[in-house]
């Protein structure tokens, strides 16, 4: 009985953590390159929508691919405005999230003639949760390795810390940032795809603030992909616990658990958990 509960809980954590982990890893890459990752919410939402459309047309695999591409598309637009258009990353992020919200609603009516949800689409069964969760964690490991052990990662870190120094060594700052943001969009889009495929359909506002939680995980994880993923899993665990304990826990405690990721981020920002330093050139244009 307790074993069964535990297994169910772990599976729930895996299932919930996928979009958090993928978006947090993507957000880490974007911020390490110096671009504020405020657009994660829009990337997740767009990814989920595109995945639903893709899955309806060609099954879950096509859906996942479409989700990643949709998220990457949002990343490309954001990067174009911030990197080449030199606009403020926060302003663009707010705009992109608003456009994604309205855009998916408009597109839903165009594709499915409904303002609230898609019809049931071919998705992934509950059995995929473990595999997807582990795959997301693997992605965070790969991202961590890429950041520390490859030339690309070295350059991304350089560009996020000191773009002028990178430029003086012949590195194309704009191109690297563009690539990192597009990649972050693809990862977040893939996370969004999981939402739609796991739910066997897209619903309005499907991302539901997960992009902001992922951003919180980036900060909690001190801009390291592994720790960000860990923070994302912790946030997912609180959500899973809240869902499982709904019957047991009183109303007040439930709201507190819901707020936990945000409260923890505020605590982290206060420097209580030790100094966490964002990339030196985060949000600064060159």
């Amino acid at each position, binding site marked *: 009985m307790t074993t069964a509960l535990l297994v169910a809980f772990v599976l729930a954590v895996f299932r919930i953590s996928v979009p958090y982990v993928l978006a947090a890893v993507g957000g880490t890459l974007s911020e390490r390159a110096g671009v504020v990752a405020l657009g994660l919410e829009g990337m997740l939402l767009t990814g989920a929508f595109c995945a639903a459309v893709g899955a309806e047309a060609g099954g879950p695999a096509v859906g996942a691919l479409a989700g990643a591409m949709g998220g990457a598309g949002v990343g490309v637009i954001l990067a174009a405005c911030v990197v080449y258009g030199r606009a403020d990353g926060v302003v663009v992020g707010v705009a992109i999230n608003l456009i994604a919200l309205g855009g998916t609603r408009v597109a839903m009516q165009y594709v499915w003639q409904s303002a609230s949800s898609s019809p049931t689409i071919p998705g992934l069964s509950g059995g995929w949760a473990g595999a997807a969760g582990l795959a997301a964690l693997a992605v965070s490991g790969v991202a961590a390795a890429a950041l520390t*052990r*490859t*030339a690309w990662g*070295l*350059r991304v*870190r*350089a560009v996020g*810390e*000191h773009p*002028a*120094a*990178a*430029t*003086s*060594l*012949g*590195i194309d700052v704009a191109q690297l940032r563009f690539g990192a943001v597009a990649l972050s969009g693809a990862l977040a889009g893939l996370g969004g795809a999981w939402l739609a495929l796991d739910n066997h359909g897209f619903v309005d506002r499907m991302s539901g603030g997960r992009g902001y939680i992922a951003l919180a995980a980036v900060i909690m994880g001190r801009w390291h992909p592994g720790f960000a993923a860990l923070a994302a899993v912790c946030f997912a665990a609180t959500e899973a616990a809240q869902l499982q304990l709904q019957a047991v826990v009183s109303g007040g405690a439930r709201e507190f658990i819901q707020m936990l990721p945000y409260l923890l981020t505020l605590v982290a920002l206060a420097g209580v958990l030790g100094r966490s330093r964002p990339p*030196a050139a985060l949000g600064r244009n060159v």
Partner: protein
Amino acid sequence: MSGTLQWRSVGKTYGSVVACRNVDLVLSAGEVHALVGENGAGKSTLLSLAGGEASPDTGAVSVDGDEASGPWTPTVAMANGIGLVHQHFMLIPPMSVVENVVLGREPRKGLGLDLEKAAGELTALAARVGWTVDPWAKVSSLSVGQQQRVEILKVLWRGARFLLLDEPTAVLTPSEVGPLFEVLRRLAAEGVAVAIVTHKVDEVVHVADRVTVMRHGEVVARLEAPLTAAEIARAIVGREPLPPPQVPRPQGQGGGLVVRGLRVGRALGPVDLAIAPGEVLGIAGVLGNGQTELVLALAGLAPDALGEVTLGERPLDPRGGAAAAARAGVSHIAEDRLERGVVREFSVADNYLLGHQRRLAPSGWLDFGALDAEVSAALEAYDVRPRDASAPIRSLSGGTQQKVVVARELSRPGLRLLIAAQPTRGVDVGAMERIHEAIAAAASRGAAVVLVTSDLHELRALSHRVAVMYAGRIVDTMDVSDASDLRLGAAMTGAR
């Protein structure tokens, strides 16, 4: 011509400022070539043009006599053997030495980086030059002198044949300068062409084979070894030193500025000093020996300062903010005009108001009538052109902006202490003379004056006494009549 880096009739303009104009220069293998001149003479611009960080409006840069066919970018410049060492280091503090060195030209092993190989090469290269470095140390843990070595190794590792250093000694302690010059001479002997930019005459004499003197963006003299300091100094200034303005010796004693045991972090102190009302104390020293911290502390802008400061026998809190300092009668001509001195986006009038907003708003509401009257009078008195108080301050030249700053700071009623930090840096001759007059006038009206300057002419022309700072302390104080080059130089290098 192999082994040469040539600037051919290059010119470069930033906005309305001519950085350099029609400059011809050749740097050859085996020489140490010094580019000297005052701030803003165009020396650093020549280096960034060679390094591909800016492109010339006219003329071109060529290596070994061949002009590049495509655009002259940092990558192309590096591939042609040009190694640029910036005054503000281009190092990434949280990364290791070896990561900084290989960045942009990473040795790879499969998908990953081969840092071990690069670390070995780096250690060997350092040994050849006569240094030891830890390739795995974080740059943020290194001293400034060590960071400079990393910068030099970085460009040498990339195969630089032309080593261009922008103000390399500005950040070094005097004991580090000699060893650096030895390394530069050794590199030149190995066939590297070395160019250093500096505005310090004494250094040039020691290290350079040839000297090119620049003024207002143009080459005004080319000198060869044997060099004498006097000859170079005359070429740099281009005029006889100004006759000192009449600053009468202070009459009364007491009631001026008294500083006891002032410290700011590890950068300053403890410092003790006293300045009588009407006295000008000149502060000399190599850049970065605590002058900035001293200025900020006296201006009330050093939150981590410790110690006791009194002005007119009343305490002055070095942590208390600029508003409290202003109330006590402190005026501050900031060292970095464009950062601290003026708000670039504000009009002339609003910039004049900055620091006077409390006095000109006794009820909380700004008295625009009084402001307009004061600004008009100030523009007239300092001959600020155009006489347009609503003009954005960034539309004025540097010297004119500084005149507005000086006018603002000297109009403080009850002025007791004037802190003038590099008051004429990047300022034209006309504005310079006007600013000198104004500082002298403030002293003769009874203000104690702290004058921090790296211009020795200015120092001697205005000061009654001179204090020399080294490693955060005042190491020598003398009457201005005793401030010989020899004595100042000895104090500035910490020899006393």
